[in-house]
């Protein structure tokens, strides 16, 4: 047993690194007071070290800590996405005026960013229902605290309260589902659950009830309709850096966890070997539920976004819609679908973080997130406005940007497997999304042309971060071969051939 634990620790370096950085950030903050930039740089270094260890793990496929946790190429891909997002979020936080106004201590803020990252890394590899629950809770608790970090403004603590209430209820539902599943199968390990269901004799009605309850928990994390009610309020009330973090990394982790649970738990090795598709077992067609949720998520996300005037809220609804697109990739039930989700996440990372970054910069300069205050921005801050426009084009999914590649692979996967109607709903939704993205575009370039504009000044570091985000958005739109290869090589979930 001791040997097994020691062996497991060797493959657990990224997470251990983050725990050490977490403790270091808290302790250093106690010793060196009021040096947030110093702590930020330690945290950044820790994230890079963790990233190095993650990349070292590519190609490994093992189950560690008595089958509690899995390291495989599938989790490595999502860990890279999460760590990249965390690095960008730390960069944003160092520049954000909203946070660095001297009113609050930031040492712990960076510690919570690390603990949230740790929770999400654990989510990507959890192979035991208990570990899934604990990692979701670690992520959620850190994000409740971070969402309420601007507590002197009432809407931040209000958002935080709504978030924790919805979160606690949905995790209660998730737990009830897990407890029923445990009663049915006698195990918490998803590989054992799969074995028991394969043997047959598991009551279908109870299995469906358990999974519906669990989908509430998963749906909350990826903000799928109808479990999305917290999203707009929390995205608006939280510091914008955290909003950006939640909209990308938290979703990626939620998808990784959900895909692992469903694909491993209901995988039929005999049928899948024949036609390359995962076949569900026990008579439980869970992908139909996901298909319905996916249609609801993208449609409601897009149509509600049309009415929004606050850009943070608008981007919140747009991120709900994007979760809906990505859920279509789960419905397909084959490796092509999983790799399409991965490609989508890689492109979504840059374009969505970029959009939030520009909104943050503009809000810091002009003090408003309202869509009307963007009138004439194309003349006040031409560079940033053009960059913002590129992110919006990419979010819509038009060539030659990365967003187009993400959507292309997703729709291709749908059509190849015969889900034509779902692909059509997806395309129609993209058209709706064009409408509200164009509204921002129009305000920036076509309104208030005649009046004199006071140019807005940005520092060189702002331009560097903006370029770090916009260059991948454009490059991945034209030269996407390596990303696609990486994603297709990373579909291997341990235990699925």
């Amino acid at each position, binding site marked *: 047993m001791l040997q097994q634990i020691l062996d497991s620790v060797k493959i657990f370096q990224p997470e251990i690194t983050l725990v050490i950085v977490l403790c270091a950030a808290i302790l250093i903050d106690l010793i060196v007071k009021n040096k947030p930039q110093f702590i930020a740089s330690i945290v950044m270094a820790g994230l890079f070290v963790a990233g190095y260890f993650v990349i070292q793990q590519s190609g490994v496929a093992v189950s560690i800590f008595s089958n509690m946790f899995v390291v495989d190429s599938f989790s490595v891909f999502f860990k890279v996405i999460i760590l990249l997002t965390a690095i960008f979020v730390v960069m944003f936080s160092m520049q954000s005026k909203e946070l660095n106004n001297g009113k609050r201590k930031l040492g712990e803020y960076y510690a919570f960013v690390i603990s949230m990252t740790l929770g999400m890394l654990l989510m990507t590899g959890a192979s035991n229902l*208990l570990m899934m*629950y*604990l990692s979701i*809770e670690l992520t959620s*608790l850190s994000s*409740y*605290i971070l969402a*309420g970090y601007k*507590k*002197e*403004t*009432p*809407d931040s*603590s*209000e*958002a*935080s*309260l*709504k978030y*924790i*209430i919805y979160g*606690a*209820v949905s*995790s*209660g539902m998730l*737990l*009830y589902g*897990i*407890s*029923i599943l*445990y*009663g049915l199968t*006698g*195990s*918490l390990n998803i590989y054992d659950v799969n074995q028991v269901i394969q043997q047959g004799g598991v009551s279908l009605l109870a299995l469906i009830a358990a999974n519906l309850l669990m989908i509430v928990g998963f749906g909350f994390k990826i903000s799928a309709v109808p479990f999305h009610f917290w999203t*707009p*309020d929390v995205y*608006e*009330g939280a510091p914008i850096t955290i909003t950006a973090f939640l909209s990308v990394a938290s979703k990626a982790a939620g998808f990784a966890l959900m895909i692992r649970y469903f694909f491993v738990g209901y995988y039929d090795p005999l049928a899948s070997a024949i036609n390359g598709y995962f076949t569900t077992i026990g008579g439980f067609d869970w992908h139909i539920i996901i298909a319905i949720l996916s249609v609801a998520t993208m449609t409601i996300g897009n149509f*509600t976004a049309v009415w929004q005037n606050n850009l943070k809220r608008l981007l919140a609804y747009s991120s709900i819609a994007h979760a809906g697109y990505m859920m279509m990739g789960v419905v397909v039930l084959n490796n092509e679908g999983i790799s399409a989700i991965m490609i989508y996440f890689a492109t979504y990372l840059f374009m969505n973080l970029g959009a939030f970054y520009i909104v943050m910069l503009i809000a810091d300069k002009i003090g408003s997130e309202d869509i009307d205050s963007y009138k004439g921005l194309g003349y006040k801050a031409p560079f940033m406005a053009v960059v913002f426009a590129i992110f919006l084009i990419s979010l819509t999914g038009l060539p030659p940007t990365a967003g187009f590649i993400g959507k292309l692979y997703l729709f291709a996967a749908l059509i190849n497997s015969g889900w034509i109607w779902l692909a059509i709903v997806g395309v129609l939704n993209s058209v709706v999304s064009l409408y509200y993205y164009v509204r921002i575009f129009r305000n920036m370039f076509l309104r208030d042309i005649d009046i004199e504009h006071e140019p807005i000044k940005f520092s060189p570091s702002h331009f560097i971060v903006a370029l770090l985000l916009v260059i991948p958005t454009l490059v991945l739109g034209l030269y996407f071969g390596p990303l696609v290869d990486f994603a297709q090589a990373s579909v291997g979930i341990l235990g699925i051939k």
Partner: protein
Amino acid sequence: MIPLNYYLALSAILFSIGVVGVLARRNAIIVFMSIELMLNSVNLTLVAFSAYLGNATGQMFVFFVLTVAAAEAAVGLAIIIALFRNKMTVNIDEINIMKW
């Protein structure tokens, strides 16, 4: 001898009382109490299955649920207190600067 289904039925009743509390009550602290009811019913289900299946896994799970429930309650009440300082209310109805 008490059959397993009696325990499951009891926990289902407790769970639905908790759900109704969450849906219908307006006081944030009562909502948190209702959430604790839900978690207690989950724990009861897990312990009952654990006893009747004859494996300890369910019981072990409950320890972790207890831990997380304590952590969640602590953070939740801290948020309620912070909000109360700002707005002097704990009623969810009155907390509505933000809408659709």
